[in-house]
């Protein structure tokens, strides 16, 4: 399976690992890239020195292309961009806002840019600003989310731009990849599925929480702050919802959320911490190497596409 995204980034399969804060480390990113996908280091709110180390470690462990995801709300934004330029990162993805003003800086340095968007207007604007590709991310995703579901958002974004679009949100296996291709995507980005990669540094409790999740296990909180977040329901999300119902201020809500992803992802406190995961968590039942996850997704998608073609295309004729 080869798409425009493979050619753009020089990767074998159109499967991209979401640049998750704390979990998109050199271990996972290099494993995904070595498996033929595109691994992404998640800068999150991490300090620039940590990001530099992760870039260097990834480069040591893989000779394949990889990317860095810049979370635009980070307090270290200018420094992170500096690190990207100094370390010669060749692909950047962005999340958490409008990266328009930074795109010229990246383009001048020859860096490919693929912003994550959740609306058609931003997609159009970023194409104009020089983005090489876009990730259209639906509200099924874990972590910070938009307001439109992938099934509805993706074809609308695809129709609004001429650059390749990658689908994200609600994709966990080859059926999701095949569906995304049907909707006009040139690839998929998966976060939650790669949390359950062997190489992901998430605490075993965090992975277990994802494996145990069912279809209705996630909730989105924080709409009042303007930055809603999807997590697996636990004591923290219930506390959040109670505060929201009580009309808590944005400051109070943000304070409750601070440091909670790290608490769950690395320290394994999945009740008081924030277990960010997408709605597809319920589909995920095993932990395996990143390369095996990618292979399985691509093989399944290829066989589905072949089967659908045989079942439905040409039936009239025969």
């Amino acid at each position, binding site marked *: 399976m080869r798409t425009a995204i493979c050619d753009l980034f020089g990767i074998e399969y159109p499967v991209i690992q979401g640049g998750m804060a704390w979990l998109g480390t050199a271990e996972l990113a290099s494993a995904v890239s070595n498996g033929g996908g595109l691994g992404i280091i998640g800068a999150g709110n991490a300090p620039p020195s940590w990001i530099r180390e992760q870039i260097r470690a990834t480069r040591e462990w893989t000779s394949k292309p990889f990317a860095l995801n810049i979370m635009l709300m980070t307090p270290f934004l200018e420094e992170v961009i500096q690190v990207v330029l100094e370390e010669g990162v060749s692909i950047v993805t962005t999340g958490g806002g409008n990266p*328009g*003003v930074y795109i010229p800086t990246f383009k001048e340095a020859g860096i490919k840019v693929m912003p994550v968007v*959740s609306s058609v*207007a*931003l997609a159009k604007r970023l194409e104009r600003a020089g983005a090489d590709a876009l990730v259209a991310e639906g509200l099924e995703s874990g972590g910070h989310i938009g307001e439109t579901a992938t099934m509805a958002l993706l074809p609308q974004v695809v129709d609004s731009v001429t650059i390749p679009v990658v689908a994200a949100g609600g994709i966990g296996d080859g059926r999701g990849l095949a569906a995304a291709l049907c909707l006009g995507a040139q690839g998929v980005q998966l976060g939650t599925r790669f949390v359950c990669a062997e190489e992901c540094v998430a605490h075993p409790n965090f992975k277990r929480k994802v494996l145990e999740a069912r279809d209705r296990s996630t909730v989105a909180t924080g709409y009042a702050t*303007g930055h809603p977040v999807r997590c697996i329901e636990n004591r923290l999300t219930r506390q959040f919802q109670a505060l929201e119902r009580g009309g808590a201020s944005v400051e109070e809500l943000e304070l409750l959320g601070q440091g909670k992803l790290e608490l769950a992802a690395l320290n394994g406190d999945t009740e008081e911490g924030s277990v960010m995961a997408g709605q597809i968590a319920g589909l995920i039942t095993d932990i395996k190497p990143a390369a095996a996850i990618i292979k399985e997704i691509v093989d399944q998608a290829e066989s589905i596409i072949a089967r659908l073609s045989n079942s439905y295309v040409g039936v009239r004729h025969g």
Partner: protein
Amino acid sequence: MATIFDRLKKIVIDQLGAEEEQVVPSTSFTDDLNADSLDLVELVMAIEEEFSADNRELRISDEEAEELKTLQDTIAYLKDKGIEDE
């Protein structure tokens, strides 16, 4: 004959779901009309479309867009770009 304000007011009402009486020159898109960052992107795109002409395409950069907080700011910006009341 429509003034820049009239044209802008219509866009703001359409894009941000504002009530007519809410929209005066000093109205702030975010503080008064609760526009979030994606609403602002849509608003800027709509302003570009409305105020572009056959011989003059209006392009508002992200840096410029950040300064457009009220209708008044926007009117001043558009006048600066040579757009006039009709």
